[in-house]
């Protein structure tokens, strides 16, 4: 029964996450950027913009300029999360279908992933404390901002509990997800009976479902930020949004 509920929930959440984010990306891409508003100094070439975007996404360059505390905590959280996610790949793929070299990488990252989990929780805790202690940040926080951090913290903590407190039969968990991932419809492998696991999976489901409707959209959003993704070339290159072009046709321009 529980297995069926979680199986259906994960299908639902996965579809929602993928379709939801894809739809947001489609929306962002569809809306024109009628004017060049790059924050200068900005790169004057397209490769330059890639490099700027890489520095923003991989190093949080602007945040580093801005505030070292937020940068440290935010960076620990995000890099920790990335490594943890990579570590989790092994629960969703069958090594028989994965090239050896990639599998070796996934295996190699397992111990690092554990430390990354601690870094992630530590970073999140730092952000959560800041949100309460620093009056400026407390002022701008809605309940959802606090809850989002709590959600992520509890995902991390419940994950660790599966390992250190109430050891979960991870092989069964893997079999469950493999049966989902390889679409063995109606032959879902049973989830083991484990409270930390139930909590962990439930919170992850919530995270997946709210992603396309929340501030988590900053993840795709940054790639569409005109101040960061535009080339500084307005004198050389004329841009014209479709709706702006329509103005020209009816105008009295000589």
């Amino acid at each position, binding site marked *: 029964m529980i297995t069926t509920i979680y199986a259906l929930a994960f299908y639902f959440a996965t579809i929602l996450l993928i379709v939801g984010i894809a739809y947001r990306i489609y*929306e*962002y891409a569809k*809306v*024109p*950027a*009628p*004017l*060049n*508003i*790059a*924050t*200068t*100094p*900005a*790169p*004057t070439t397209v490769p330059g913009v890639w490099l700027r975007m890489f520095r*923003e996404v991989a190093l*949080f360059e*602007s*945040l580093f*300029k*801005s*505030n070292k505390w*937020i940068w440290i905590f935010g960076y620990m959280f995000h890099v920790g999360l990335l490594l943890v996610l990579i570590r989790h790949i092994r629960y969703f793929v069958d090594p028989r279908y994965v090239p050896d070299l990639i599998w070796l990488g996934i295996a190699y990252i397992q111990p690092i992933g554990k430390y990354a989990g601690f870094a992630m929780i530590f970073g999140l805790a730092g*952000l959560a404390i*800041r949100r309460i202690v*620093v*009056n*400026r*940040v407390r*002022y*701008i*926080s*809605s*309940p*959802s*901002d606090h*809850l989002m951090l709590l959600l992520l913290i509890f995902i991390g903590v419940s994950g660790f509990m599966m390992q250190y407190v109430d050891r979960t039969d991870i092989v069964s968990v893997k079999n469950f997800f493999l049966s989902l991932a390889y679409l063995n419809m109606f032959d879902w492998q049973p989830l083991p009976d484990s409270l930390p696991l139930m909590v962990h999976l439930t919170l992850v489901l919530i995270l997946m479902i*709210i992603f396309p*409707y*929340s*501030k988590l*959209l*900053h993840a795709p*959003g*940054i790639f*569409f*930020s*005109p*101040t960061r993704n535009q080339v*500084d070339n*307005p*004198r050389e*290159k*004329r*841009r014209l949004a479709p709706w*702006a072009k329509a*103005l020209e046709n009816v105008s009295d*321009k*000589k």
Partner: protein
Amino acid sequence: MSELDKSELDEINSDAELALPDPLEMPEMVPDAMKDLHSFEAAPKHQTDLGYPGELVDDWQDVAIAKIGDLRQKYRSFRVYLDSCVKCGACTDKCHYYLGTGDPKNMPVARQDLLRSVYRRYYTLPGKIAPWLVGARDLTEDVLSEWYNYFHQCSQCRRCSVYCPYGIDTAEISMAAREIMDSVGKGQKYCNEIIGKVHSIGNNLGMPAKAIKATMVDFEEELEEETGIPIKMPVDKKGADVLLVTPSADFFAEPHIDGLFGYAKVFHELGVDWTLSTTASEAGNFGMFIGSYDNMRKVSLRIREAALELGVKRIIFGECGHAWRVAYAFLNTLAGPWDFLDPKYPVPQHICEFTFDAINDGKLKFDKTKNDHMTLTFHDSCNVARATRMGDKPGGQFEIPRAVIKAVCNNYHDMDENTIKEGTVCCGGGGGILTDDLMDIRVKGAQPRMRALRKVTQEHGVTNLAAICAICKSQFAKVLPKYDFDMEAIQSVHQLVSNAIIMSDAPKEEEPPAPEAANDSKPDNKDEPSASSEAGK
């Protein structure tokens, strides 16, 4: 305080505590400190002249909400920035208006949230089903009034956008907010009246063609008296090579006029055939301040029309900050393509680029001692610094004006590095709030810049502040005295050029002029007859 007290205090206090306040020092938070600052609203005529309803429409909520929907389909920035903010707090201490007032609604993210909260309520699922959870709220009269007051406490300087990890630009949100308010009939008098004047007369000051011509004749006399040579200020001269588009403040107020004299001397010395236009007699484009593409475009098209009518080959912009943003970053889009101009030059060029190139080519000579009575520092104008470029390389907007200043002045010192270049703090008067009814926020917003200036005056003997923006110059002239500086401490960059430039055709004085000064006056003579006949029309 007695000598004894003082020495005791010195021992107690550390050096750091005795030092001047950090320009970016954090204020104590004072909620709602500025909530009642309400600039004059536009009269019905100011509104209708721009194509907006004369007064608040009956169904203003519906119109405003529909306008949000419209803007999110037209501007990617608006859409992405409303969705992407994670409330990390990186921007909260970056706005000069927050630093100067302590009002938390002047923190960039909080300012955005005034609008974002309404966007969430009507355009996002969580805001529709659980507004309390995500900080969403209904659009009420109180919200509208809050919008009006706080979106007119933003100078659209983009300092926050530099520090935001996603590049969220509060200027984009405040422009959108102003457009929404205009479209429901609640516009601001200062901006809208001025845009109306540009549409009907041609410049922000409402100076008619005749007055401009008469003023230029006066200026020519003044220049001749000063230099002994007939330096021309041509107006509407057909067939000139260069159209100079400059803020109308350059025709009217100090220290702007001295900057204009500087441009005229540079053009004269280089033998450049230039002209002003009475129809495109304004570089500033307040259409940007109210987020109106239509108005911004209409104002820009005046420049295109003037360039075509006069048959010029190049367009050069005078010292004006927001103007240079519209000129550099938007003009090609709004009024281009510029294929009828000389392709050898970028369109448009900044006067500092022009002068800088001439200096580099060794075509200008200066007597730097003429500026020795001053020690200069340079205020990077926000929109030049963070929204444009000069020259070929990123950062040229910082280097080129400084290079020009250093070519004409011996004494120069930069202010605190966190308050210049891309991190420059706004003068406090930009973005459509340079009006006396907003003096309170203008003075408070200038505080970080004034503190940075105080530091270099005490530590490095700086006496004067140079700028390349009409708004900065006007704002500083008003605000400097409030911080115990001389109002004349503000200088135009080309005023410094004007002081130091050696005119090669100047009559010989008792002091030995530069060796090549006596000859080589041909290009200027050639220029004279046509220019004077134009001016005399």
